[in-house]
């Protein structure tokens, strides 16, 4: 093979670079790559190759992030929670095989719509509890049993979770609820009916309780 001069190969290199940089070609390639990526994600999700699928859902609170594993809904995040950091935490805790795919989340989005419309009192979607520790599970299972329109106190929930003096710990577990709204931690109030805290902000807690008619229960608990 003839070894050419550095200058010769530089002109070829310049031609290769120049061609690759043509603006229209680049734009068309980016569209084609985006389409190919979308098809990939749909396929990965349909064939069960992804461990976590996520999408966004409209709500009266703004855009929620909803994420599910093969087992079920694993995370609901409020608009202020930064999407990337929510996903990064899921990647660390569960699996980095996370794709944006709406089809697996269609049932939960529909149920959330119905709930926010006042047409649904219970969620039927399966839940994945794997982001919740053992104590948190006990607390949040007790919480899940509170019916629509009902409320319990932190002490009640702590007692049902098997640690009667653990109101504060129960409050922490509720505050760390990774699946708010669907696991109704908004139904747990302070003794005497004060709202207490809420991971999504206490105004939202009030809004949810009003939607469910649970504020009357809270007022009654105060009497």
């Amino acid at each position, binding site marked *: 093979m003839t070894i050419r001069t550095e200058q010769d190969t530089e002109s070829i*290199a310049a031609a290769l670079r120049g061609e690759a940089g043509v603006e229209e070609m680049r734009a068309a390639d980016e569209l084609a790559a985006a389409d190919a990526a979308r098809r*990939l994600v749909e396929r990965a999700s349909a064939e069960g190759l992804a461990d976590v699928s996520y999408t966004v859902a409209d709500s009266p609170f703004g855009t929620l992030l909803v994420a599910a594993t093969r087992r079920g809904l694993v995370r609901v995040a409020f608009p202020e929670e930064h999407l990337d950091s929510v996903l990064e935490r899921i990647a660390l805790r569960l699996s980095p095989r996370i794709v944006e795919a709406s089809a697996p989340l269609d049932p939960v989005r529909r149920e959330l719509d119905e709930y926010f419309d006042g047409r649904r009192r219970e969620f039927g979607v399966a839940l994945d509890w794997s982001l919740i520790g053992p104590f948190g599970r006990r607390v949040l299972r007790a919480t899940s049993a509170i019916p629509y329109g009902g409320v319990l106190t932190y002490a009640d929930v702590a007692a049902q979770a098997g640690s009667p003096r653990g109101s504060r710990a129960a409050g922490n577990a509720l505050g760390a609820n990774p699946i708010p709204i669907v696991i109704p931690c908004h139904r747990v109030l302070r003794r005497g009916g004060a709202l207490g805290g809420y991971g999504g902000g206490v105004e939202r807690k009030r809004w949810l309780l009003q939607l469910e008619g649970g504020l009357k229960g809270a007022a009654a608990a105060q009497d």
Partner: protein
Amino acid sequence: MSDGLPPFQRFLDAHRDAVWRFLVRSVGRAEAEDCFQDTFIAALRAYPRLRADSNLRAWVLTIAHRKALDAHRSRTRRAVPVEDLTVVDASAPMPVPRDEALWDAVGDLPARQRSAVVLRYVADLPHRDIATAIGCSEDAARRSLHEGLAKLRKVVPV
């Protein structure tokens, strides 16, 4: 904020353009789609076992390079026998745009040189990452790149 791998979706968003351009240039537009799917499905399967500090672009282009090699091999197996080809009158050359001729010539390079050229000038990878992608030393990658360019120079007058 985290020390882990980025969520796969972020990885896909960040590297899909580079992989797509690499594949279009190394296997052609018609086969790029299949190779793209094969590349990222393979990447998705292997993803959780990857070290968090891996060079993700070099890694995914390594997979794309292998998928491109597979595509070239199966194309060679399907290739039309030479005697069936219509003889083209060389005295009346078709007006081929220079860039097409250049990229046709890239397609005719030996596999390693082709990958080196495309990884360098389409995917914009540094020599070290080209070496990772095609599985050789940095010096060997430099040599392949240089040899590829030299051959192109011979085929296509610029």
